[in-house]
């Protein structure tokens, strides 16, 4: 089955991203496809490479980056939600006159149309949020 995943909450404060990650991993392990993971609302905070949790805790951003690398999962961060919350890639940093960018490996910034497309293309769209 082809799954789309929507994550609406940031890491650590909520379990949404952890649950979504475990779901995505389990689905892939069972031979299903994850068409796209879309990060919206505070969910965009999952994409900051500046997150530095203590060593004995999981690094949620790094887990997503690894999953993207190993299984070629498309991790998309909503541009409008991301810019509001200070999540920028190199292009957006330049465009907005910022001297730093923090989008982690494996993530890309794009528009909300990518979420709708994930809904259309996937057999199921799973929403992880509050």
């Amino acid at each position: 089955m082809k799954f789309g995943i929507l994550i609406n909450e940031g890491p650590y404060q909520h379990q949404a991203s952890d649950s979504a990650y475990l779901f995505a991993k389990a689905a892939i392990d069972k031979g299903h496809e994850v068409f796209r993971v879309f990060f919206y609302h505070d969910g965009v905070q999952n994409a900051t490479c500046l997150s530095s949790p203590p060593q004995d805790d999981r690094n949620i951003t790094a887990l997503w980056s690894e999953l993207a690398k190993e299984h070629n999962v498309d991790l998309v961060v909503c541009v409008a939600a991301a810019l509001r919350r200070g999540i920028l890639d190199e292009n957006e940093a330049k465009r907005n006159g910022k001297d730093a960018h923090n989008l982690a490996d494996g993530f890309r910034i794009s528009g909300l149309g990518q979420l709708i497309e994930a809904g259309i293309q996937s057999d199921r769209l799973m929403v992880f949020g509050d």
Partner: protein
Amino acid sequence: MSEGTIKKFMYVNRKPPYGTVYALESLEVVLIGAAFDQDVSLAFIGDGVYQITKGQSTSDIGMKNFSPTYNALGDYDITKLYVEQESLTERGLSVDDLMDIVYEDEDDDWAEKPSIRVVSRAELADVIAGQDILLNF
């Protein structure tokens, strides 16, 4: 799924318009999603019914009052706004407290018709069961 697929998308709005950004960002998805020519409806349940109440004013809280945007939904061919009766009643509200959100029916000589459909919890459950995609905000 082919390019021409039409799915039933429902946006389920459960939170008040201010206090968190869910309602505003939900509306942003609805407006962007309208370009995809899908079968779109909205549901307002729980505190979500406050999103479409009349006479909202945000001048004292430093936030944009985005409630007029709901009036534009008809122009985006979004004409089905389900409001749960029980959620209204539980909050001492009635349909008279909601904005007069309308659309122009192209199949009926562009007659103006109400977009808001007040339904019971049981009726809404049936509508939700018939959807392909549920986006909960």
